[in-house]
């Protein structure tokens, strides 16, 4: 059946903020869907409150609603836009749950809107554990023995039948949230209690353990004519027990015979049919008993998933794009294969290479968290690598992580085989390196298999890598044969250098002298059977290169690598924009990146895509290959975060032209002495500060400038290692903790700043072309200085700054841009304390807020920056119409207010004792994503941001208040207002006293530490029992935060609003008045029209 003619407009639901388990991959899939639908002439309406995404660019939909994903808000959009259909299968679990809610509330029926992509029935069958189980059995497949429990007592009973260990999985949660292994009844109680809470249907599934089995995934697509294809098979190197998002995975499956693979395929097809997915894709996970091949179906997702994004990048088969076409009626055989252009999409890709994905974790951000990997996903990003064999793909993927110690190494290893195996028996971040060390020290494959249950084939590949390492180390000379052998197994120049006892640069020089260079192969979906017309390349030390010559002017854009806290999808946004802008300006754009979740690694985004690690070696080789024809104008390094920026010096040294701000200028901003000179010259102040490379120096600086001090390592993103230190013992403790992270040293000094208490923090994103400054936006933080800007909420335009202050900020920004020598983007952070403006730091690169600013004010900062980098002036860009005439420093009074709010992952992490990690905010960034609320004034915008971030404040209920002494003065007004609005108040004794003296009645409740005896009730128990609806708790200065911690942990576990700063509470209270009247929804396009109207007047 061709395209349906009754669907002329579609509402696409996005996935909301980036959270663990639901990340940038849904921007990739949603963006594809929007592009496809528009290309098909469908009017696209989009709802997604995540400003950091490409999909929410006004250019990708006809009406873009950066609004919360709630049934009420979506109904408002439906009423306003009257779409023919809603497409929820490309926005992850969030969109699917929203679709079910819309259906259950009768909203779809009421407005005559059809759900496309997946029917409600199919969604339920896929997600409801029991329904799914029945259906799998009906399909003739096997399932783990299991029971559904709705109470803890039931769960205990079933556990007797199943025996320990057993698996607990809550229904309808994403990313495996709340699931885990129970080895004892104690574990069971803890996991089931939490699981029942997390599940929207208060259900958990208890299941027999299949720990240690082999795990596989299939990505399937099916159309209305029942044509079904398996796009990709994925094998988990880490066996069952580790969430697939946290596993090292490989595509295609490498340890299945055809008979076993076809069995999985048959079961998969039976299931997709039985579930009734008939216009889209699904992902099915299998466990296979390595001893006898018994197959168990673990789960299926009737939607585009993280794995389907990976599968799309791994195969060149764009699942989301095809899913969108199927949703509007096309059949698979009516859709052409993008890569070959001549063959249809109704086929199964075949690979002549191997793809390995490795997860990127952020345990360093949560030092108290238990780093054991379980069935609850904990990784925050991933890197993918393509190689002609597994060893190459694995080694490339590991070095793509850009994390110390993540690659295999052959240096000293003091641990014994037994110790290494013992450690490796628990899955953790970096286990693969432990296995490599164990095998290197003589562990047998059998021993390593016993410890890890990793398939012997994968273990032997590590043995092979170790053997090659020995050959490299033992060769008489580093000759061509040795180099070719090393390179054919993915060894980097750095590893080769290490094995030969010299540096990476020397290894590279030898290699280049011997002419050992990689060729670039093509991802073509068909293993070379048909010519590929899409230049999607990866490196290989093989014979024949497939890079087509081109006589165009080329620009290379370096992406930002795997997502991590502090460097996420925002940077990908900027890279993608640069690619679009430069392509429009006539350049051939060449993207290098290794993050499979992103839009930048969509082969549609740039003229050429190289899926390669972002290391100096790998980037230089791409540049070499592209330098064989045409003219390389230069490389864009300032948009890909610290990853790309970190390569600038090396590239420059190798003679590669860097576009925009020079590497020296980049250093200038980080180098304290020179930067201070620039500030001095401009008459600007910085907090008193100094630098140190070791503890003694740091103590000296701190005592000189006075505590509290803010310490942070230079050259890091996301406030890595950044803390407020109140005294010398804490500083000693700080050094002890960061010692082995290698983030402070002679070349990377620690910056020590006087910490400004009670300051307002301001963020500015601006463009500078050498003569003119163009402010993108001035953002005012809602939390006071000291909270990392990435975790802080902020408002644009600022709502409490006067014109004079904004003017001072603008002047200061200009002076810094000029002094540093910026060509392109600049982000400056200021603080205003007691009326004095301080410069906190300046970064001559794209910041995290670039997409937020672009959406809030309609200023395409990244596009403009990329044009400035290739030599255009701001004046040109204004004349051309790319930039609005008036910059973002002066926003008209009737312009909307946009609020950015951070989304934090605390509920994913527990300590080894099973308690939530502390959720207090600080100078080290820990948020994974953000949302934006936009409306006519600050309270409304703020309310929307809260609704989008965590569901918003309850409109009534019981509020618990406990604040530190320094906050007691500030607490009175907001708490009074809450009482007036009808909330009940409880407080700890000290806080209650202050409130009562101010005429606010509050019941006293015990602190956790005041509790005597098991039966006493402290606030922690009240929270656990669900008797508290909002928690206000600010940490008390330097002292241990034990009480506060227990309270915050309980609040996170109970998933209730938690305020750890008064500023945020005050904003929330201010927004309460506007909360109940429902929201007005306005698309970005409408805002743009209003702005244009203003200009015209």
């Amino acid at each position, binding site marked *: 059946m061709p395209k349906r003619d009754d669907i002329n407009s579609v509402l696409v639901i996005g996935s909301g903020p980036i959270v663990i388990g639901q990340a940038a991959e849904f921007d990739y899939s949603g963006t594809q869907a929007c592009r496809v639908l528009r290309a098909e002439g469908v009017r696209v309406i989009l709802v997604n409150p995540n400003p950091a995404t490409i999909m929410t660019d006004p250019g990708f939909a006809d009406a873009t609603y950066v609004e919360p994903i709630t049934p009420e808000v979506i109904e408002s959009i439906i009423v306003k836009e009257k779409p023919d259909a809603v497409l929820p299968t490309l926005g992850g679990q969030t969109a699917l749950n929203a679709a079910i809610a819309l259906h259950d509330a009768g909203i779809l029926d009421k407005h005559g809107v059809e759900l496309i992509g997946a029917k409600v029935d199919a969604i339920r069958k896929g997600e409801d554990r029991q329904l799914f189980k029945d259906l799998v059995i009906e399909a003739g497949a096997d399932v783990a023995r299991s029971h559904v429990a709705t109470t803890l007592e039931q769960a205990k009973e079933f556990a007797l039948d199943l025996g320990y260990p057993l698996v607990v999985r809550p229904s309808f949660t994403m990313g495996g949230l709340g699931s885990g292994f129970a080895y004892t009844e104690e574990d069971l109680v803890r996991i089931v209690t939490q699981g029942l809470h997390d599940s929207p249907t208060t259900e958990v599934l208890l299941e027999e353990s299949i720990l240690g089995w082999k795990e596989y995934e299939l990505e399937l697509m099916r159309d209305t*004519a*029942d*044509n079904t*294809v*398996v796009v990709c*098979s994925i094998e988990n190197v880490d066996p069952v027990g580790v969430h697939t998002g946290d596993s090292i995975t490989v595509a*295609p*499956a*490498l*340890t*299945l*015979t*055809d*008979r*076993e*693979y*076809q069995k999985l*395929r*048959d079961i998969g097809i039976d299931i997709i049919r039985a579930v009734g997915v008939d216009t889209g894709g699904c992902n099915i996970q299998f466990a296979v008993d*390595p*001893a*006898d*091949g018994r197959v168990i179906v673990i789960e299926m997702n009737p939607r585009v998933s993280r794995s389907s994004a990976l599968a799309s990048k791994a195969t060149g088969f764009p699942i989301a794009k095809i899913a969108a076409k199927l949703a509007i009626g096309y*059949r*698979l*055989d009516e859709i052409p294969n993008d890569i070959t252009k*001549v*063959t*249809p999409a*109704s*086929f*199964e*890709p*075949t*690979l*002549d*290479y*191997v793809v390995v994905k490795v997860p990127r974790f952020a345990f360093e951000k949560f030092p108290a968290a238990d780093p054991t990997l379980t069935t609850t996903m904990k990784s925050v990003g991933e890197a993918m690598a393509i190689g*002609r*064999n*597994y060893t190459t793909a694995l080694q490339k993927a590991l070095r793509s992580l850009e994390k110390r110690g993540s690659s295999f190494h052959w240096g000293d290893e003091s641990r014994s085989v037994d110790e290494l195996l013992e450690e490796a028996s628990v899955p953790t971040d970096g286990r693969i390196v432990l296995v490599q060390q164990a095998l290197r020290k003589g562990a047998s*494959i059998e021993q390593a298999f016993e410890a890890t249950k990793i*398939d*012997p*084939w994968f273990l*032997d590949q590590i043995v*092979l890598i170790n053997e090659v390492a020995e050959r490299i180390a033992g060769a008489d000379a580093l000759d061509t044969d040795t180099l070719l052998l090393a390179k*054919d197994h993915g060894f980097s120049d750095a590893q080769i250098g290490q094995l030969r006892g010299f540096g990476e640069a020397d290894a590279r020089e030898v290699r280049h002298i011997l002419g050992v260079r990689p060729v670039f*192969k093509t991802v073509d979906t*068909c*293993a*070379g*059977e*048909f*010519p590929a017309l899409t230049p999607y390349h990866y490196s290989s030390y*093989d*014979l*024949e290169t*497939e890079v087509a010559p081109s006589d165009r002017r080329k620009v290379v854009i370096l992406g930002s690598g795997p997502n991590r806290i502090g460097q996420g999808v925002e940077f990908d946004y900027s890279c993608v924009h640069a690619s679009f802008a430069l392509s429009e300006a006539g350049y051939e754009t060449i993207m290098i990146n290794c993050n499979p979740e992103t839009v930048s690694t969509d082969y549609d985004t740039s003229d050429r895509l190289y899926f390669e690690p972002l290391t100096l070696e790998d980037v230089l080789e791409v540049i070499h290959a592209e330098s064989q024809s045409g003219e390389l104008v230069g490389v864009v390094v300032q948009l890909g975060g610290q990853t790309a920026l970190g390569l600038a010096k090396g590239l420059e040294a190798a003679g590669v032209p860097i576009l925009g701000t020079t590497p020296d200028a980049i250093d200038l901003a980080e180098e304290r002495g020179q930067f201070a000179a620039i500030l001095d010259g401009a008459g600007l102040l910085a907090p008193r500060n100094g630098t140190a490379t070791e503890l003694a120096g740091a103590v000296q600086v701190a005592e000189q400038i006075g505590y509290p001090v803010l310490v942070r390592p230079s050259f890091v993103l996301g406030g890595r290692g950044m803390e407020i230190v109140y005294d010398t013992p804490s500083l000693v403790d700080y050094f002890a903790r960061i010692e082995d992270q290698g983030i402070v040293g002679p070349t990377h000094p620690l910056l020590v700043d006087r910490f400004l208490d009670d300051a307002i923090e301001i963020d500015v994103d601006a463009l500078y072309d050498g003569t003119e400054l163009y402010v993108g936006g001035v953002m005012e933080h809602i939390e006071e200085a000291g909270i990392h800007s990435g975790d802080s909420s902020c408002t644009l335009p600022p709502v409490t700054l006067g014109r004079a202050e904004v003017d001072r900020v603008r002047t200061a920004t200009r002076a810094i841009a000029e002094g540093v020598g910026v060509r392109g983007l600049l982000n400056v952070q200021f603080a205003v304390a007691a009326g004095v403006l301080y410069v906190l730091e300046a970064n001559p690169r794209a910041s995290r807020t670039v997409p937020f600013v672009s959406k809030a004010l309609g200023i395409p900062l990244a596009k403009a920056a990329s044009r400035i980098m290739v030599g255009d002036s701001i004046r040109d860009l204004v004349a051309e119409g790319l930039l609005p005439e008036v910059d973002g420093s002066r926003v008209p009074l009737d312009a909307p207010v946009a609020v950015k709010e951070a989304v934090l992952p605390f509920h994913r992490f527990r300590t080894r004792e099973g308690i939530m990690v502390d959720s207090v905010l600080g100078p080290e960034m820990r948020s994974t994503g953000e949302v934006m609320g936009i409306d006519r004034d600050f309270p409304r915008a703020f309310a929307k941001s809260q609704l989008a971030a965590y569901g918003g404040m309850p409109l009534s209920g019981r509020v618990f208040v406990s604040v530190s002494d320094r906050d007691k003065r500030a607490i009175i007004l907001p708490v009074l207002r809450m009482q007036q609005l009808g909330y009940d108040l409880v407080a700890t004794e000290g806080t209650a006293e202050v409130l009562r003296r101010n005429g606010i009645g509050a019941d006293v409740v015990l602190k956790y530490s005041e509790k005597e005896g098991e039966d006493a009730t402290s606030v922690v128990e009240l929270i656990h029992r669900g008797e508290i609806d909002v928690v206000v708790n600010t940490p008390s200065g330097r002292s241990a935060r034990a009480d506060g911690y227990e309270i915050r942990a309980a609040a996170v576990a109970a998933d209730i609003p938690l305020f750890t700063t008064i500023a945020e509470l005050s904003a929330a209270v201010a927004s309460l008045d506007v909360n109940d009247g429902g929201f007005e929804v306005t698309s970005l396009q409408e805002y743009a029209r209003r702005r244009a109207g203003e200009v015209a007047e």
Partner: protein
Amino acid sequence: MTETPTTVDEQAPAAAIDLTRAVLVLEDGTRYEGRAYGARGRTLGEAVFATGMTGYQETLTDPSYAGQIVLMTAPHIGNTGMNDEDMESARIWVAGFVVRDPSRVVSNFRSQRSLDDDLAAAGVVGISGIDTRAVTRHIRSLGAMRAGVFSGEEAHLSPGEQLDLVQSGEQMTGRNLSGAVSTGERYTLPATGERVGSVAVLDLGVKTSTLNYLAERGFDVHVLPQTVTVDDVLALEPDALFFSNGPGDPSASERHVELLRSALRAGLPYFGICFGNQLLGRALGFDTYKLPFGHRGINQPVLDRATGRVEITAHNHGFAVAAPTDAVSESSQGFGRVEVSHVDLNDDVVEGLNCLDIPAFSVQYHPESAAGPHDANYLFDRFRDMVIANRTTDDSQEAGK
């Protein structure tokens, strides 16, 4: 096996020569140097590539690959070893084997032997460690061609000598290989499903899976040597006739075509797979031709024109039937109307023939898969149903007499 000119070194290697070397030489003079794999020595054949990511054991033991040097585009081969269950015939048939990264270990619960050992034992000369994608692209651009793999001492022949040997090899066009792969003796497999009748299978290189599926559908399966006559076939009084897959050029098998025509005239229901499709095509009066580089893989989209359904299918063919795909045509040999029932969506090649006036159909691809998806397995049901329907018709005609 005389058709695959393989010689295997039997002497202990001379000390001075590097016996780990191997070279793949194509008839246009292109050379790819790599490492010796499998048996050492020299082999000549037609270089083709197969794109399946699973199923190397089924590929190796598929008689249709006789006379061919098979290159696997998937880099890792041998990971799951070899076992007795997945053999598609009693032995390995390929003339030579080209892989990028042979597995060093075997990991699978069903594995009984390693692939290396089986290749060496079967005397299959192979090569590893070459840029298999470059070779694939070369063959894709220039077409399947004669080739040779030279390893061990043979690798040290001069390039000129090696090329001469390759160019003196037999062309696949015009080559009849049925004699090399067919069973020497007739044998019978009893029906394993509810018995429907019996089928005479002309073994032109038949695969075990095909025989098993026929038996499962209720047929006693009489497997006949390719040398039988139509009288031999009819003497068995089978309910149907089946021509299997197999190697070689269908235009060099006129005797089998004649046999088929006689059987069809005798009213015997017919099902053919692969070579059996090409022979039906020729029997009906169509021509066959050599594809530039053939279809060899397990991901080919085939459209069943009757249902509009697309099935993902296993292919292994270098030749195809030239029949009009836009309309029903008339058999020039007097068998009535014929339609092209299936086409490959990648390149519109004829993938199936259906006779509208006689009980006969065939497909170019492999419904028995092995290796490959099971999407087309329903064709065995279609065959059984056709045989049953035909018998009912016969019975009613009998009754009417």
